[in-house]
């Protein structure tokens, strides 16, 4: 069975739709800036954060005061996709939601009291979003650290392929919070300048926040947005079984995930026209990816990391970056890897320093890796 993406939506510091975001990326604009916000950190730091005031005014709808900021973003993003898609049979539709920390700000009891139910629990948060749209089935919630977004796409693909549903709303979101910031700071993993994936001067990650939604279906006739139209050709996931917070030095898990995706899509490494890497800009992650892609003989395939534009958006990343992967295929433009100037991994990689017109793109590969040793890969074909 063939499964397609037929619509997209993305809200990030760069814009309130996937189109707005993509237009900014083509102009090499980044969402990363110097942030001075004492509620997040007593010191100034670099991040890709919403102008909260502006975004809060954007995500307004009737009854929105009953929802947390993240829930409002989910609702806003899903609503945009549903409006684009039009009438669908909700009985045949499932919501698949990806997040790592959800409403983690509700650890503050004073804040938690403002909302009904134990909304810090991820399945409870997902139910609240699901109920807003009067979806008749339970939502599926994936929490596989940084690969959650790709896991959600592959889960949705599976549920449709099995005939359990015809359509899936796939949404992912996380916020830039003090919780995550202090955690990565304790790991000494935060760069003191905007992140520079695969570059020799890279010093770590820059955190971001975003909420993104795709709409997968077995009926390509429903296509709502041609810019978002693509076939989900294959996918795979694998674990390094090596370390809970460090990537494997051999890139074995990533290699296996990519190999499974290629096998599922019945493709060879040489068939891939573009790779959207994970590219967090930590020393070890980017090096691990370089080792894995060389093992796979994919070192010449054009590659970028989108972290230089969005920062690391955690549970949203896999969906944000899949949306942009598909838009690059459809527009025939590959984006320069923001922050990349001088090659900084030990193996060769074809990292794009500048935007590149590429009219004949067909297959794009999105890869991702995360804490817990997990790796994911998904291949999209221009439809």
């Amino acid at each position, binding site marked *: 069975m063939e499964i397609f993406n037929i619509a997209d939506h993305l809200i990030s510091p760069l814009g309130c739709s996937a189109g707005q975001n993509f237009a900014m990326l083509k102009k090499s604009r980044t969402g990363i800036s110097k942030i001075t916000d004492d509620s997040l950190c007593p010191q100034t730091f670099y991040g890709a954060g919403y102008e909260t005031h502006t975004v809060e005014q954007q995500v307004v709808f009737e009854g929105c005061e009953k929802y947390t900021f993240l829930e409002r973003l989910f609702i806003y993003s899903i609503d945009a996709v549903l409006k684009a898609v039009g009438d669908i049979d909700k009985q045949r539709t499932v919501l698949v939601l990806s997040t790592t920390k959800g409403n983690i700000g509700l650890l503050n009891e004073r804040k938690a009291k403002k909302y009904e139910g134990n909304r810090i629990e991820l399945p409870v948060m997902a139910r609240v979003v699901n109920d807003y749209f009067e979806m008749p089935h339970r939502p599926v919630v994936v929490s*596989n*650290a940084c690969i959650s977004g790709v896991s959600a796409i592959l889960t949705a693909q599976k549920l449709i*392929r099995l005939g359990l549903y015809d359509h899936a709303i796939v949404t992912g979101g996380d916020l830039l919070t003090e919780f995550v910031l202090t955690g990565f*700071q304790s790991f000494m993993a935060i760069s003191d300048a905007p992140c520079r994936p695969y570059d020799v001067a890279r010093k770590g990650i820059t955190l971001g926040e975003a909420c993104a939604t795709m709409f997968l279906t077995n009926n390509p006739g429903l296509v709502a947005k041609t810019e978002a139209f693509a076939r989900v050709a294959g996918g795979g*996931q*694998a674990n390094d079984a090596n370390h809970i917070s460090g990537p494997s030095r051999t890139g074995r898990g990533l290699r296996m995930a990519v190999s499974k995706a290629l096998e599922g899509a019945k493709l060879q490494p040489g068939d891939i026209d573009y790779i959207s890497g994970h590219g967090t800009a930590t020393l070890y992650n980017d090096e691990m990816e370089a080792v894995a892609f060389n093992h796979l003989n994919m070192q010449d395939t054009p590659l970028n990391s989108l972290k230089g534009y969005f920062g690391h958006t955690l549970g949203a990343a896999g969906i944000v970056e899949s949306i942009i992967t598909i838009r690059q295929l459809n527009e025939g433009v590959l984006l320069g890897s923001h922050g990349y100037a001088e090659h900084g991994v030990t193996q060769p990689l074809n990292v794009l320093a500048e935007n590149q017109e590429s009219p004949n793109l067909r297959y794009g590969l999105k890869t991702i890796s995360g804490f817990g*040793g997990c790796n994911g890969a998904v291949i999209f074909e221009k439809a």
Partner: protein
Amino acid sequence: MNLEIITDTTITSSAIYKDGTLFLANEEHLPFAQYCRKAYQLMEASYPKFFKMDNLCKLSFLTAELLLTENIGGALNGEKTAIILGNRSSSIISDQKHYESYVERENSFPSPAVFVYTLPNIMLGELCIRHQITGESSCFMMEDMDAAFLFHYVQDLLLNEGYEHCITGWVDFSPTEYGAELYLIGKRDKGEVKRPFGINFNQKV
């Protein structure tokens, strides 16, 4: 091709069972810290990393340790084994610990050893390392164990994605309660399937 439950293990605050047989009863109602140490000793597990883990990971570790005894673990092909778990409370215990470490600014001391456990899928990562499982490891969040969802997901891995074994079930650790039940699912070409893997696989007969 038939799918079967090869073995299962359950841990509650009152007892530990392996395939329905009592392994350890928590007669003295020991708190988790002592109870899990007792279980660890009884299992003759020797794995120093256990003591660094948070309670969610300790609980999943012990459940899987008992699940994969009797050399079943050795019979697994790591590449052809997946772990698919359900969970409700995420890493709330470690989340609260991390929160307490930074909430007072003048006394802020966040620790990477705590922060690394603030994701529910870390327990799957720990199991992958311990048993050298390199297949898919996915953590699904659900308000209670959605056996039908897990069944469809795992069945597809085994029948359509080339996996030979899958560890599935439920592990949850909240501030007020905890519990785990894990099942090792495999395939059988011929012979009698004693415990078929079905949509209600978690319902004890």
